[in-house]
């Protein structure tokens, strides 16, 4: 009697649980970002829940923490169903079979890519599959203090060559005392320069450059140190690394600790302008390169991927499809993750964007797109080590403790070691 009642109540509980599970799907979504992104993304999730009944657990983190959690979660086979991904790490996740190949879903039409250019889909193709859907594009850009240049009477133009750019740096320094932040800590600048020399930084998961190209790159810093206009490691030591608000272009009390420009991603213009002192107007142009057209490229600002371990691949794809293709959702997101990849969405929300975002969109579409080459592949395994080393080498050059030649040799030697493992 007693046993029976226990049995039945258990059965009842199980049935209830089953129906609960069947009635609603539950997805875990993870991303990194700031308050604006957290709020807008959550709003889109809420909207989706209202429309479909699918509920979400969200994990938001700042960029650095995000990768720590993601790595440990993947060790335990606990990756979130849908996760934001970056060109810096996606290759490693794909190499270790942690992400779901989206190709079948594109073929079946569950993931509607009709309005997404093939070149943009290619950005997420690795190891013969589609492992990340690029959700926004942007490009590298040289943001600069327009007000300062105007007051000093210095003219610059898009697609400057390296020599033209260095001449500007010299002139700015002589006339205003402002120095130049030559992409300190901006990893992608390295590749940008070597592409201009005809050699991408990485080829097939190995270092693609030789002593000559490396020496050219480090030579830029060496020259800048000699001429006195390089903003060096001692200034950056007092700043919060990577922070927009403490970028030396907008933050500092005297020209000797400030830069007239900042190498960054195009979509940073808005945040940078918000952080700039009153009366300072910022603008953007292309990064300098020995050959700007060979260097330039449209970048994937971030991907959305689906974990291979997900229990709900179909529902995850359905959400991803909504996230990328829904005009309604993107009117909330407002291109905060980069220019929408769907042409339909892009046109539909164009009018809703704020003026600065419109400037950025125009810059990418009108200046970068016509003057660019193939987008580089995501960084290979080992790239983070190379970039860390390169940052140190640049630092040492900025302290005058290392020559460009020795820096280049160290880089090549270490890279050979890193990639041979």
């Amino acid at each position, binding site marked *: 009697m007693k046993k029976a009642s226990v049995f039945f109540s258990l059965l009842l509980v199980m049935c209830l649980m089953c129906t609960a599970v069947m009635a609603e799907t539950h997805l875990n979504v993870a991303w990194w970002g700031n*308050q604006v992104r957290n709020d807008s993304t959550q709003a889109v999730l809420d909207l989706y829940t209202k429309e479909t009944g699918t509920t979400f657990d969200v994990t938001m983190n700042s960029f650095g923490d995000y990768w720590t959690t993601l790595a440990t979660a993947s060790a335990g086979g606990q990756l979130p169903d849908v996760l934001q991904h970056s060109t810096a790490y996606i290759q490693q996740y794909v190499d270790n079979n942690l992400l779901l190949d989206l190709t079948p879903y594109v073929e079946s039409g569950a993931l509607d890519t009709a309005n997404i250019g093939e070149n943009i889909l290619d950005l997420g193709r690795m190891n013969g599959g589609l492992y990340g859907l690029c959700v926004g594009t942007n490009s590298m850009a040289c943001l600069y203090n327009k007000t300062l240049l105007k007051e000093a009477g210095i003219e610059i133009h898009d697609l400057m060559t390296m020599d033209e750019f260095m001449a500007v740096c010299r002139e700015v320094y002589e006339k205003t005392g402002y120095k130049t932040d030559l992409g300190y800590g901006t990893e992608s600048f390295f590749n940008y320069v070597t592409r201009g020399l005809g050699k991408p930084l990485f080829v097939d998961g190995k270092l693609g450059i030789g002593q000559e190209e490396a020496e050219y790159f480090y030579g830029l810093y060496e020259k800048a140190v000699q001429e006195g206009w390089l903003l060096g490691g001692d200034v950056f030591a007092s700043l919060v690394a990577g922070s927009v608000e403490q970028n030396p272009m907008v933050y500092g009390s005297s020209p000797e600790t400030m830069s007239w420009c900042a190498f960054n991603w195009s979509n940073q213009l808005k945040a940078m302008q918000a952080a700039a002192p009153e009366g300072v107007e910022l603008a953007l142009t292309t990064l300098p390169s020995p050959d700007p057209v060979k260097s330039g490229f449209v970048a994937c600002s971030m991907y959305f991927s689906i974990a291979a371990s997900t229990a709900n691949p179909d529902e995850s794809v359905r959400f991803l499809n909504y996230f990328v293709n829904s005009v309604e959702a993107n009117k909330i997101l407002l291109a905060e993750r980069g220019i929408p990849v769907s042409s339909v969405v892009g046109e539909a929300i164009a009018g809703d964007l704020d003026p600065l975002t419109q400037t950025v969109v125009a810059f990418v579409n009108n200046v970068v797109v016509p003057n660019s080459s193939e987008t580089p592949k995501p960084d290979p395994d080992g790239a983070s080590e190379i970039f860390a080393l390169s940052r140190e080498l640049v630092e040492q050059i900025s302290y005058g403790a290392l020559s460009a030649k020795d820096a280049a040799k160290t880089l090549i030697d270490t890279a050979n070691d890193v990639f041979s493992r």
Partner: protein
Amino acid sequence: MSFKVQQMLRTVLYHLLVMLLGFVMIYPLLWMIMSSFKPTNTVFTTAGSLIPATWTLDNYINGLKGFGGIPFTTFFRNSFFISVLATAGTIVSSAIVAYAFSRLPYRGRGFLFASMLVTMMLPAQVLMVPQYLWYNKLGWVNSYLPMIVPYCFAIQGFFVYLNVNFINGIPKDLDEAAKIDGCSPYGILFHIITPLLTPALITSGIFSFIWRWDDFLSALLYVRTSAMYPASLALKLFCDPGSSSDYGAMFAMSTLSILPVLLIFIFLQKYLVDGIASSGLKG
């Protein structure tokens, strides 16, 4: 008369000195608190001046709003829940274990004590992945269990050793006498040692609470739902180097998050003073 004046002068000098040094100690924090009342876009541009030119509460309003519809108070509540339970577990378990290490000799005690010290010598960062895997196996991931339960088992050697040190300082004659009166080792722990241990327990409580309150690493690993974040981790959400950061709100919430700890400290430090002094310990 002159002696009295001299003494008064010395007192004034004492307070002056302590206050001056105290000001140097808290200046950086004062800067943070003042910054939390500045408009967020001027936090750094006006970093040179301590007092805000215009006072604003926007940072507090903005910060308390939280993220994605989760108000910041939720994070504070989570922190409280975790810190209080973990601290209670730490205090009780550490004191009991310390009592054994200090007063109750048995075979293998030295070995256990040494292994306790050894467990403190491995960097916590290298244990992150193995610990995660283990708790994942136990099914504890995405709950507060990994952040509370282990602390109830005296896993922090620091607190055990701290208590051992204090119990060693309590004269043995007291428990010898109690023993003769027929008191069991457990009785001695509760009736004799614990009351005399108050300062150490309070000290442990303060440290443990603060460390749990500040700990974001375990939450980062084990809590997968942002609504369950403690304040220490949520604070980091204000600063995303990849996009813009809201330093004003971060300072505001940092200020709020040191408040409870500070209050607890001020409240408890009184007992530190009174602890042994009032218990009439004979030399």
